């Protein structure tokens, strides 16, 4: 096997870690609140701008900037839920999809208005590691590690805490939990904030690798939906594995052809798989 192909695959799997984090956040929101946030990737964009300004413009230390970015994204997630999702909670699913789609337009254009369409980079240059004559991006390695840690933390939060149990209970049966004394509205808010925080974490990791611009959400957004649907909307474990499948397809496709075509392969793979397994790969 070609050494460069292996290199591409390793970098693909590493990117998959960040995508998995985003897929977890989106799936959590879908599984619990039952709303698909079309604009989820644009929360990431907001987080990236936040980190860029805190670190590169105001000179805060990077870890602090990241923490504030995560907290800010969590607040943004809760705010989006309060302002946009809760008024349409009882509307047909498509209206909910459209409301968050309107938010996508708003966030992208508002970012254009505030920051212009320039590509901005936080200017952190991490070394490229050389492992057995293969080049692996250190930034991606960190991102992969942090994403995995984030996923594990989320797992234990859901399994071990009271709020986590309440979240899982709602995902299983939203009718009955009200009778069990769980305040659904509060859980929805918490879940939206967690979803926002995961987007903020992903923003920290992506800011190390990519320039931020108002439309960066369009690069990741469709891929994340695809991953979530492939894994089965609301199925967190499925989404986690699906993100590695998709990132591998993108990496291998990109190695043999161009970046755009690799995404074409990934999207086509997704469409075909939806015909074979309409409820997702891992849904029985």
């Amino acid at each position: 096997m070609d050494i460069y192909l292996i290199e591409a695959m390793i970098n693909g799997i590493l990117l998959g870690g960040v995508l998995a984090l985003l897929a977890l956040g989106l799936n959590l929101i879908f599984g619990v609140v039952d709303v698909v946030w079309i604009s989820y990737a644009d929360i990431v964009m907001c987080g990236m701008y936040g980190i860029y300004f805190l670190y590169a413009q105001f000179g805060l230390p990077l870890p602090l900037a990241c923490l504030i970015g995560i907290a800010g994204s969590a607040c943004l997630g809760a705010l989006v839920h309060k302002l946009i999702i809760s008024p349409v909670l009882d509307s047909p699913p498509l209206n909910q999809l459209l409301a968050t789609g309107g938010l996508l337009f708003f966030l992208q254009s508002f970012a254009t208005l505030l920051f212009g369409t320039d590509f901005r980079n936080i200017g952190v240059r991490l070394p490229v590691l050389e492992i057995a004559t293969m080049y692996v991006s250190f930034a991606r390695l960190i991102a992969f590690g942090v994403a995995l840690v984030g996923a594990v933390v989320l797992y234990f939060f859901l399994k071990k805490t009271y709020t986590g149990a309440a979240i899982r209970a709602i995902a299983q049966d939203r009718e009955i939990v009200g009778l069990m004394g769980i305040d659904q509205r509060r859980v929805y808010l918490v879940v939206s904030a967690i979803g926002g925080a995961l987007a903020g974490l992903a923003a920290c990791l992506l800011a190390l690798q990519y320039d931020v611009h108002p439309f960066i959400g369009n690069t990741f957004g469709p891929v994340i939906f695809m991953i979530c649907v492939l894994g089965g909307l609301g199925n967190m474990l499925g989404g986690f594995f699906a993100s590695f499948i998709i990132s591998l397809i993108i990496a291998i496709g990109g190695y043999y052809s161009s970046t755009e075509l690799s995404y074409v392969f990934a999207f086509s793979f997704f469409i075909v798989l939806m015909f074979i397994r309409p409820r997702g790969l891992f849904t029985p």
Partner: protein
Amino acid sequence: MNYATSMMRILMLVGAAILVALPAFVPAYFLHLLIQILIWAFIYTAWSLMGRFGFVSFGHGAFMGLGAYIPALLWTFWDVTPWIGIPIAVAAAILLAVIVGYPCFARRVVGHYFALVTLALSQVVLLSLTAARDITGGSLGFTQKTVGHSWYALQFPEKSYFYFIALLLWLAGLLVWQRIDRGISREALEAIGEDEDAAAAVGIDVMYQKMRVTIISAALTALGGAIYGQYFMYLNPETVSGITVSLQIVFAAIAGGVYSMFGPSVGALLTLALTEGLRVWFGTEFIGAANTIYGILLVLCVIFLPQGVVGALQRMKPKRTPQPAKPAAVKP
């Protein structure tokens, strides 16, 4: 024929007369806006043929992209006249609609899942157009070969020609909408939109009905895209395909209202007037301001006006004659 319908006829005739006489009076800039409104209105109407029955496609950017690019590329690189290129583009859109639509319907991909599969489809077309940068110029876009005034190349520097082409197209779109609205298949499609199993149980050929409306909708969208391409001459993957265009189509149609014939057209009028008005108001130093307000209005519209502008107006109108019950007509 009662009083109301004859009034309606007269109003429509007056409206048609105004539309036909318009190019003689309005300045070129407004004619340019009107042409865009008519082309988009046609595309939104085509989308609403599916959207009103709850088959919400986020993939119409794909059909529009095919429609815009195929005739333009054929003409620019192989000297094939758009008179042949446009039918090829429409056929390609139909083929794509069948390839994706048939398995979708056979496998019961509905609701969210349908929206997201079609979203992937529009990304596939966008990225393929961008990837073929040797001929399409990638994300820089490309300009068609120009020959001046020519029926053969379907190019007219004089705007009034395109105005009448767009007007005819739009009227044809409304006619198709009306035929489907008045036909038996509307009842069938509404039943399918409500509950596929129940519809199949009463003997509706679910697959046939869905495929038919999907093919019509895709074909018309490609046609609209082709005329858009002929009018603008400059094409960019981002402006005729992909998630942005698909969402724009869905939003404008829904904002206008998908349950009435003029709804999508009102959506086109409102959204274009809004973006253009805001653009003039804010000037070019505040890029993004227009779309920011547009985005806020979209969210407010979905929250407070789920039936769209025309739908909301119709509900406010006092009803003189008892109207026949409309099943499923209020499900946005």
